[in-house]
């Protein structure tokens, strides 16, 4: 059912365009899958008639071992990223917005073709994704301020509670909203100092790989964001049960056949991994609307509260 017709904008007359190899992003590098596998990605069908699927690319099909390598890279990056000043993290997130803006046309093409949007809608989605980085960049040095407390204990003690990143977060990014949704789950996880392993939309992974290139040319340290394109249902269970993953976001289980979020939560229970459940009621997982202002819930989901006591006295 594949066809070699490129859905990308036609190159200048007579020129054979140079196509990109879509690889993983682990520890700041762009490896192929250790498994040597790839899978075909197609453009979203346009219109109601059953047109032939349009081939876009062979994307690296990440494996269990790739995911484990990504967790190792994320763990290695925790110290530096969580230890960076909040001001610094804010600037780094803002820098991502800058780089995305300068690569804007790439992202517009990605979502136009991948999600089947009109050019105007694609522009709006990319604008929202860029603005989301700016929104979260501003939170970097404010989240602790609005979530910390000085606790007036009944005794001569100084006592404060403040948030700290939980560590390595596995993010199952949304299947439908392949750029705005992706940014909307990555930004709140890393702004507080976590590092992450992201499984992007299985059928629409190209924005994630282009985002990886934006991250690599921003000031995001290698390992802070690791992106493993893959079949979500194949790799997610390994992340859910991984002992060195501190938290897992199950948003991307919505719309994936053969992947019940409850099964992943069950696996996560074995190491008391924090779980952010997908939206929806009961066992149904529903992809939430990412165009709304996010609120703080996603940042709250991946922080720990540390309380420190010290006596007061002469």
């Amino acid at each position, binding site marked *: 059912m594949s066809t070699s017709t490129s859905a990308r904008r036609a190159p200048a007359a007579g020129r054979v365009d140079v196509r990109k190899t879509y690889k993983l992003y682990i520890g700041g590098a762009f490896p192929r899958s250790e498994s040597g596998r790839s899978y075909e990605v197609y453009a979203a069908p346009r219109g109601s008639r059953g047109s032939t699927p349009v081939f876009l690319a062979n994307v690296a099909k990440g494996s269990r071992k790739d995911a484990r390598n990504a967790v190792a890279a994320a763990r290695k990056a925790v110290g530096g990223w969580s230890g960076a000043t909040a001001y610094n993290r804010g600037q780094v997130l803002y820098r991502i917005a800058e780089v995305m803006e300068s690569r804007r046309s790439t992202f517009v093409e990605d979502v136009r073709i991948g999600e089947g949007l009109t050019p105007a809608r694609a522009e709006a989605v990319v604008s929202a994704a860029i603005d989301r980085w700016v929104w979260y960049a501003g939170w970097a040095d404010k989240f602790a301020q*609005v*979530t910390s*407390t000085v*606790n*007036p*204990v*009944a*005794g001569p*003690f100084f*006592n404060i*509670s403040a948030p700290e990143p*939980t560590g390595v977060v596995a993010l199952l990014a949304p299947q439908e909203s392949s750029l705005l949704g992706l940014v909307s789950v990555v930004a709140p996880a890393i702004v507080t100092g976590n590092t992450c392993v992201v499984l992007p939309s299985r059928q629409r992974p190209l924005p994630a790989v282009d985002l990886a290139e934006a991250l690599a040319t921003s000031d995001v340290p290698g390992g802070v964001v690791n992106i493993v394109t893959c079949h979500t249902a194949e790799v997610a269970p390994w992340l859910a049960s991984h002992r060195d993953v*501190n938290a897992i976001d199950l948003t991307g289980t919505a719309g994936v056949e053969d992947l*019940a*979020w*409850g*099964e992943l*939560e*069950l696996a*996560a*229970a*074995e*190491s*008391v991994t*924090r779980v*952010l*459940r997908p*939206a929806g*009621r*009961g*066992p149904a997982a529903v992809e*939430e609307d990412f165009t709304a202002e*996010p*609120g*703080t*819930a*996603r940042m*709250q*989901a991946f922080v*720990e*509260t*540390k*309380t*420190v*006591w*010290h*006596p007061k006295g002469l």
Partner: protein
Amino acid sequence: MPTFEYAPAPESRAVVDIASSYGLFINGEFTDSQGGGTFKTISPATEEVLAEVTEASAEDVDRAVAAARTAYTRVWSRMSGADRGKYLFRIARILQERAREFAVLESLDNGKPIKESRDVDVPTAAAHFFYHAGWADKLDYAGLGPDPRPHGVVGQVIPWNFPLLMLAWKIAPALATGNTVVLKPAETTPLTALLFAQVCQQADLPAGVVNIITGAGPTGQALVGHEDVDKVAFTGSTGVGKAIARTIAGTRKKATLELGGKAANIVFDDAPLDQAVEGIVNGIFFNQGHVCCAGSRLLVQESIADQVEARLKRRLETLRVGDPLDKNTDVGAINSRAQLDRITELSEAGEAEGATRWSPECELPSKGFWFRPTVFTGVSQTHRIAQEEIFGPVLSVLTFRTPGEAVAKANNTPYGLSAGIWTEKGSRILWMADQLRAGVVWANTFNKFDPTSPFGGYKESGYGREGGRHGLAAYVTTGDAT
């Protein structure tokens, strides 16, 4: 120096009136079980049977949850926050009024020294209700998010180490935020929870807002797994916590888990040693070491290790082990035979693995469950006594040379509940506090608790916080929740 003998100074039991048997507190009154059995609760200090208690059946759990649901929809969720708060203030006051009764009953049923139940457990429990009472009509100001709303019916399962205090930690925030409760106390320590049921009656708390069902593991499982429970709050072992997390996986039930710990108490060479030794003793021998945040691993800087060890042993020679009701007792009885067996087994493993065991000379009563305060030196990180939670009066001593090594050793555990730092250097305290992966860090103090101070762990010590503004978050859902 002359030594003075202590005369016995027992607190009177006359203040407590224990019934010979207890039913289940469901919908505001004590009722008989439907198809459940009974079990006995004993004094661990004497093995005397204190009372016969009901083992709630699955049908009983059903009834209790139904009562809580009715009370939630018809009464409690419709009541103003101010009125909810007034009920909690009443409860706080009644706990204060009946403080001695609760303290004696707690020491009898749990085995902990009366000076601890009297000075820590009961007053802190009352304080918890008083603190949360004031939140009930101020939740919009708590910064929890827009429109904070209760979950509904909360199922709560608590441990035996601080029976009344853990009840207060669970019930006070649940009620303040507008939830109703079904609570199961631990099977070895049900009596203060049953006395608390009488407090609810005295306070005229609407029927069904608080339901107390006694029983063991199966009762707890039935409660946690009940379809009509919206949120689960559990304090106890990491093993049971994981089982609960599995039970609720794939449901929309919320949970907070407050699990085990293996805290490092880190002493630097510039620490104020007299205070540090007191902190080490308090850290591990408070409540017979039956404390999830106990400072069970002493990490002492190598240059002062001998000195600290000598001072520690000298201090431990003065600890008084014995009758929990004696006002001079420092260390009481181990809560149960099963726990005593576990402590004994792990201590034997410590010896077998090559650590050096020491205990002060002290006479132990002939009946009941007792364990001498015990210190292991020469402990290495791989020893079971350095890895596993003993939950008893057993201290493992390890050494370190640099702050970095201290951090690495302290964090080398699946747990992350608490930690202690002893040093006079302020910048080192703050650096260490940043590095330690633990929910509570005590610097130049240890084992301090307060209703305003959030408590809870990292990693396998659980999730969610109890106490303070952060503790409220676990009992509400807000407009911006995903």
